[in-house]
């Protein structure tokens, strides 16, 4: 499973950088670098197999929505660890971002959960939880 996950990660070209536990295994240097090399060099933490961290595509989509809402310049680096407040979002921005996410992922976020979202990763994780609940 790890190898499959690794190969799918290394093949993608990421438009936005993110500090995701899965992606940290991949080196950012050459996109055509063979994936299994990075696995040999670095041990795979066992927690990844039961990872509750959101998929990279989810994190990417959140980054895009955040950048759009906050009108950030394309060069601004937004990662999973980025805090909304640290990106210049105020409370109205945060609420608008959550609304944008609800629309994009067709989910409904409870107000209390929305308020506990501090980083892009938090948002992505919550989205995946809600999407999973929906399809369950």
């Amino acid at each position, binding site marked *: 499973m790890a190898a499959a996950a690794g190969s799918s990660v290394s093949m993608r070209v990421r438009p936005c950088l993110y500090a995701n536990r899965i992606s940290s295994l991949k080196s950012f240097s050459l996109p055509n670098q063979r994936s299994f090399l990075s696995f040999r060099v670095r041990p795979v933490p066992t927690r990844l197999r039961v990872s509750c961290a959101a998929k990279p595509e989810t994190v990417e989509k959140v980054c895009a929505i955040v950048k759009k809402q906050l009108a950030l310049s394309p060069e601004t680096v937004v990662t999973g660890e980025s805090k909304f407040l640290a990106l210049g979002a105020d409370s109205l921005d945060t609420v608008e971002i959550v609304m944008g996410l609800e629309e994009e992922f067709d989910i409904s976020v409870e107000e*209390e959960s929305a308020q506990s979202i501090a980083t892009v990763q938090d948002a992505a994780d919550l989205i995946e939880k809600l999407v999973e609940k929906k399809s369950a």
Partner: protein
Amino acid sequence: MFPSLLRAYSPMKMRCCFQRSICSASSSLVPVQLPSPMETHFWYVLPDQVKSVSLLNQYMGLLSPIEKENVLSMPGHQLQKRALLARALVRTTIARYQINGHVDPRSLKFKKNIHGKPEVVWQSEDGWCQPHLHFNISHSSSMIACGVTSNSRIGIDVEEKQRKIKNNVLAFARRYFSLHEMEYLSSISDSEVQHQEFIKLWTLKEAYVKALGKGFSAAPFKTFTVQVKTDSKRSFVLAEDLVFEASEIMVESLNDPKSLTSSWQFALLELAGSHYAAICMEKDKSIKVGMKVPVRLTAWKTIPFVEDECVSGTDAVMPIGGLIKL
């Protein structure tokens, strides 16, 4: 808008309006007396007016190491400047009140209460003297404001009047505001007016939640209604003061109708023609339930260490909601 009323100003008020303290950058802050009960001091700075690099460096020198780190971690010069001015405004404003003698803005320590609301940590030698100064800050991209009271919880929020809302206003209101508020907004046919009323409601709701100081989850927006009753719209001279009664603003909790929402008082202002500012403060305990007492407001536009301009009573500060005494 109120030219005839400005003529009614007493000499005392005029003095305040035209008082400008212009100090050199290295001089100390002009001290101010603590606000009296039911009085709010409102200080604001316009980032676009602060351009001097040496002044910004001076502000940076006031910050704690953690604050400096937070400022520098913001992406981009504009956001860094905004974060810097916010901390500089809070520190210099509180230092003006010179409680326990001269206070160096650098020496102020802050903490967050258990719900995350920032508070000053007062350090006194005997540990007994606890000043009852309360403050709250808010910033939009073009204005940073700090409200100060004595002995009364306060929350403020400022927003640009023209702030763009990405989502449809009614969809937003349906999702986040109370039913009554959503119905009120739906009843407005002009989209520009609807947008303005939306922003006003947002600032009032934000100010209330921030005044409560218990975090957003203690009062989710959907669980309370802010009502603006506009049947009374007048201004009159009361003794030597000018009182504006633009409307009555009340808050009602939907979950807990018995909660003491009547102990909160609101003021809504239009600032510098470009912003709405909402102030929510706790009524003084001595005021009987049902008694209408105005919020006394003194507002300054400031560039700390450079210039303080008392603007309450000028066109820069227009009361548009609540019972306000300038």
